[in-house]
């Protein structure tokens, strides 16, 4: 981190209320250094999705600021911000909207103005990184759920993002698909913020975790230490699955 003084993501004092008046975020502060893999944990309704929507400017801050690799999220920086922040949505059917895998992965870079051989290289490279190059000409709805999730990751990788933001990456995956995705994520050379309540997955993939609860960051530390603290987890409606225990170091 010393060689990269500019962190991938800086959120400070971020507060947001929905138009109906529901306050979702009450001042979130967090910094994610370049190359880190961080899990964002929190119960349902903690504001995780609201926070994620701020990271690429789909929602704009009521108060506070979001900076991606030093660039403020504002209306005039939106195009560059959306290239830098790669959002992978929970349901791959929402993310894969084009008729074929190739066109879907090409959608992002083509919007950035890329064409021809360069675009083709970018698409193949992204699919190769998630092990889905063979499916390049298939329609997304003929792939298995796990394969679709991997292609969804590729659609975002193709934009060469500064930070990859995954919303519940392990949801609905069978154990093998879950492990395959973990292997892919571990080998990606990119900053990752993973929103999840799959605590073992967080432990497996992320050294560091944040707990978002009641619209603020309630805890920030080593994943192992947070998960070993049963009282902390209980206070924020988080639980390890039955039969699991994380020994404190």
């Amino acid at each position: 981190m010393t060689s990269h003084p500019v962190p991938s993501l800086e959120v400070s004092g971020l507060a947001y209320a929905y138009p109906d008046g529901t306050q979702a975020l009450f001042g979130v502060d967090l910094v994610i250094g370049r190359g880190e893999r961080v899990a964002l944990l929190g119960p349902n309704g903690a504001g995780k999705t609201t926070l994620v929507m701020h990271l690429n400017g789909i929602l704009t801050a009521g108060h506070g600021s979001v900076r991606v690799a030093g660039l403020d999220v504002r209306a005039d920086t939106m195009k560059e911000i959306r290239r830098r922040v790669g959002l992978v949505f929970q349901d791959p059917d929402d993310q894969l909207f084009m008729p074929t895998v190739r066109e879907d992965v090409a959608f992002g870079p083509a919007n950035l103005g890329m064409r021809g051989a360069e675009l083709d290289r970018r698409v193949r490279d992204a699919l190769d990184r998630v092990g889905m190059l063979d499916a390049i000409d298939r329609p997304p709805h003929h792939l298995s759920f796990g394969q679709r999730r991997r292609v969804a990751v590729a659609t975002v990788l193709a934009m060469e993002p500064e930070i990859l933001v995954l919303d519940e990456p392990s949801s609905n995956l069978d154990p093998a698909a879950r492990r395959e995705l973990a292997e892919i994520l571990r080998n990606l050379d990119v900053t990752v913020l993973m929103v999840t309540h799959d605590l073992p997955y967080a432990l497996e993939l992320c050294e560091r975790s944040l707990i978002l609860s009641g619209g603020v960051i309630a805890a920030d530390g080593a994943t192992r230490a947070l998960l070993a603290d049963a009282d902390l987890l209980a206070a924020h409606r988080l639980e390890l699955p039955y039969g699991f225990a994380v020994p404190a170091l």
Partner: protein
Amino acid sequence: MSAGHHHQLYRPGDTVVHRLPPQCKLLAAAGFAVAVVATPRESFWAFAAYAVMLAAVAAAGRVPPGFVLRRMVIEVPFVVFAVAIPFIGLGERVEVLGVPLSVEGLWAAWNILAKATLGVVASILLAATTEPRMMLLGAQRLRLPQLLVQIAMFMLRYMDVIMDEMRRMRVARESRGFVARDARQIPVLAKSAGALFIRSYERGERVHLAMLSRGYTGEMPIIRDLSASLRQWGAAGLLPGLAAVTAVLSWSLS
């Protein structure tokens, strides 16, 4: 998805007709239809010529007659309508097998049947040799409004997803003992349809967010190069060209 990986109207192949760029085929089919419609109904020979042209296209595209015939079922409502005309038509009457029929009605029925059939067969051949999404890309090249093309594209992509959702809702209903027997069950079905609409609408919003997240600005980037060579335009122009000549001849001969 037991029907395989292709749309049921499409018949995969690698013939001259399949390889033509979609925009050429779209224009050819439209041009052919215009020529057919413009032909006077008395020119029986012209309609025979049109049928031969379509048969030639089918042969070149390796589309078997049975495939075309099965898909012509869509025309049945028009046939029923056309058959009714001679009975309800007015004016001069002629006896056919003891049944008095309107002469003007017979002509009108023949006119509708012949022209509709030729148009339907041309459309079936177009659909059989052009993948649905290529058709839309072709329409986009022909400057059909972006918004319409995009809506059709999303329909194509999400049809299966929505059908799946519908199936799950039906299974959930029936698992709890629901049977649609008579009109009293209509409110339940109507509520299901409403729920499906809301779900699809919400999915639409999520898809839009996903598009925005990847830099969507209102226009679909054109990723595939679909430009057609002069030769391809020439080949595709053969059908409407011959049809136009036939139409003009039928007018000058009648």
